[in-house]
């Protein structure tokens, strides 16, 4: 009996009035796991990240080196754990900035229309024409590589896409009668954007965020490969794959595990976003 009341009091999704399916739960669990690792990495790594600890390179998995060693004989487990900091941190920060900026600008453009919309859209279209890696190269070469510069560069690269997406959605919502009603009431643009439009485009915007996150992880690894991303001896996951790519034909764990790490993060982000907790609305019981 007491056990039952305890169960009923736990803040599970069902008790809070939400339904949250298992796919979403698994996704969230993996994201949280990586987030915890990113924060606690310095205490978890068995060896210093930059130290060559093995005489052999591309070592196999063993008791000493759980995930084997890399092309210089450094411990892969330590490198993957520390890499989480860069991949999770930089990518999440960049995707948040890109989507927030893009969505806000997109909604303003849709609501205001006219010249503001035309000029902003053409400007961002033109910007979209610059190859992303080239742009990153120029910026990092000019300003130098640091984490804030990387985050901002990645955010700027992905903002136009997010803007286009949000604008297209917002234009549709903007023609609905309830927006006309709000306009006829005399509401201003900030109210229209935050209260009338944003809640109605949230779902697709989140799905887009998940996809954009994956792209940012990939571009970040591309920048790292060119030596413009995270600086050695530290490395993000993408850089770990690149630097150990020679071992692919040998099937060494040094190239497999960073790939698995990237896949697990990007897939679980999308699993979570596609299966967010939904408020249970059936109350007639």
């Amino acid at each position, binding site marked *: 009996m007491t056990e039952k009341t305890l169960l009923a009091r736990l803040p599970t999704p069902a008790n809070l009035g939400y339904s949250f399916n298992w796919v979403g739960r698994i996704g969230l669990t993996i994201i949280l796991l990586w987030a915890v690792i990113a924060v606690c990495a310095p205490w978890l790594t068995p060896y210093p990240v930059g130290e060559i600890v093995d005489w052999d390179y591309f070592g196999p998995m063993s008791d000493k080196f759980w995930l084997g060693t890399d092309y210089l004989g450094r411990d892969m487990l330590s490198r993957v754990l520390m890499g989480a900091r860069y991949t999770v941190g930089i990518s999440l920060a960049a995707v948040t900035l890109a989507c927030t900026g893009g969505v806000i600008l997109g909604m303003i453009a849709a609501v205001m229309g006219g010249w503001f919309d035309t000029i902003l859209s053409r400007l961002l279209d033109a910007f979209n024409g610059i190859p992303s890696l080239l742009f990153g190269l120029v910026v990092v070469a000019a300003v130098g590589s640091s984490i804030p510069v990387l985050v901002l560069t990645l955010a700027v690269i992905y903002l136009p896409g997010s803007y286009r997406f949000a604008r297209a959605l917002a234009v549709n919502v903007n023609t609905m009668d*309830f927006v006309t009603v*709000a306009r006829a009431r*005399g*509401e201003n643009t900030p109210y229209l954007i935050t*209260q009338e439009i944003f*809640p*109605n485009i949230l779902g697709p915007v989140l799905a887009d965020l998940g996809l954009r996150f994956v792209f940012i992880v990939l571009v970040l690894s591309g920048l790292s490969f060119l030596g413009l991303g995270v600086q050695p001896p530290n490395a993000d996951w993408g850089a770990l794959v690149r630097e150990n790519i020679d071992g692919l034909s040998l099937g060494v764990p040094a190239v497999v595990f960073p790939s698995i790490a990237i896949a697990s993060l990007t897939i679980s982000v999308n699993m979570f976003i596609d299966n967010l907790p*939904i408020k249970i609305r*059936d109350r007639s019981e």
Partner: protein
Amino acid sequence: MTDTALVSIRDLRIGATTDAGRKVQIIKGVSFDIAPGEIVALIGESGSGKTTIALSVMGHTRPGCKITGGQIRVGKHDITAMTEKARSTMRGTAVSYVPQSAAAAFNPSQRIMQQVIEISAIHNLMPQAEAEKKAVELFRALALPDAENIGNRYPHQVSGGQLQRLAAAMALIGDPQLVIFDEPTTALDVTTQIEVLRAFKSVMVQGGMSGVYVSHDLAVVAQIADRIIVLKSGEIQEEGATQQILDAPKHPYTKELLSAFEPVPHVSAEAQTQAGDRPILEVKNICAGYGPISGGEPHVKILKDVSFRLERGKNLGVIGESGSGKSTLARAIAGIVPAYKGSAAFNGQVQQPALADRSKDDLRGMQIVFQLADTALNPAQPIDKILGRPLTFYHGMKGRAREARVKELLDMVHLPAALRHRLPGELSGGQKQRINLARALAAEPELILCDEITSALDTIVAAAILDLLKELQRELQLSYMFISHDLSTVEAICDDVLVMYKGEVVEALPAARMSQDATHAYSRLLISSVPKLDTGWLTGLEQDPDLVAAFSDR
């Protein structure tokens, strides 16, 4: 009966599971038969399960619903026992479907002919040339103009009434034994509806096909059906021959349905207006339109020189078909579509053409209520927020006072206060329209512009909304401008009527004497096109074909 019937449905039960895992029954044990060549009408309000039953005859249920019990038999096919694959071979050949909105059912990027003969291609019924020949015959039987070439057009190149008939041709191409019509004329204008009904009726009689006709409009059903089944919340209330249902209804619900059809003549609110009083709304030579503006005039001109006066406490009806500019008139007055010429004076004060230049108090005094409550209410906001926003915006109400007022408003439109926590998607059509109205009332307006607010509702629900409008008028001294294509609703609530055609007012007259006094040919056509509760009305109806052709873009 069971041996000879084409369709027999026995103890049909359809259920669904809600997101909380609760099971609900939508159809609760319905049984009926359809004889060969017979058209049976399913009638009831929205949510009564009429479309759900009609779709189940094809073995189809909407996502989330499931046939939980009973048996459906069509001809030799036992639908309930069939696999999904077997059902799909039967769809289009044994049973076919005419949807409510043909405009949404046609693919805009394909030519009409390609889509009409699709069924014969899917089921390999006949070679393409033969199918096209047959389609042209069907077009002719359905009285479509230019039957040889209409198939080469794209869906946007034909009118709404024509598209609805083309959808019927699509359903008939596979020679089905049974055709399901799902409210096929609800979205059409009255004059167009007549054409479409006539075409459907003649084609069904010629082909000797059976039909299921789903509708909430008793007068339309009276023209086409042999038998009527009255439904309410998933159960059959009454079943009988059309004439019997109309003349001698037994069930109280059927009686209610019939009485809702007879409009209660409008008694004008006590004339408190003194001679010197300013009219609440005075419109002078207003012109408005859409599109890019060049030389001070928009590209597409809709309203042409419309003038009228509305006295305080009176109601003005505006009637006309779609495209007549009646909605644009309301929008121009409200400032949503700025007028480029002429003026609208509210309470004696001339209003600025554009919304942005009007004062908050002027905006408050004149509220507009839109036709479709589905799109007029933000689906992401709960009701208390929807109603609370104008309270905060116009009257600065917050917290407790605001909540109390929201409850009061809900009470005013006869809804329970507990509804305020729901989202619009969780309400019925009638409830949504009441919320839509309550939001306008929250501003404490003097004039409400009602844009077809009962058109999307069932007869009984619409009648209840009209009663509510009258009651609110008595209590709050409101004035309404009531836009509609339905003459009986206008008669039921308005003092004066404007008849609009192609952006112009062709006639203005008192509502009570509308049917007798109308002199303009278009007004007469409109009045004669309103279906009557009489099985012989459509057959007996004589309209001058030249007149019909002159006033419609067929």
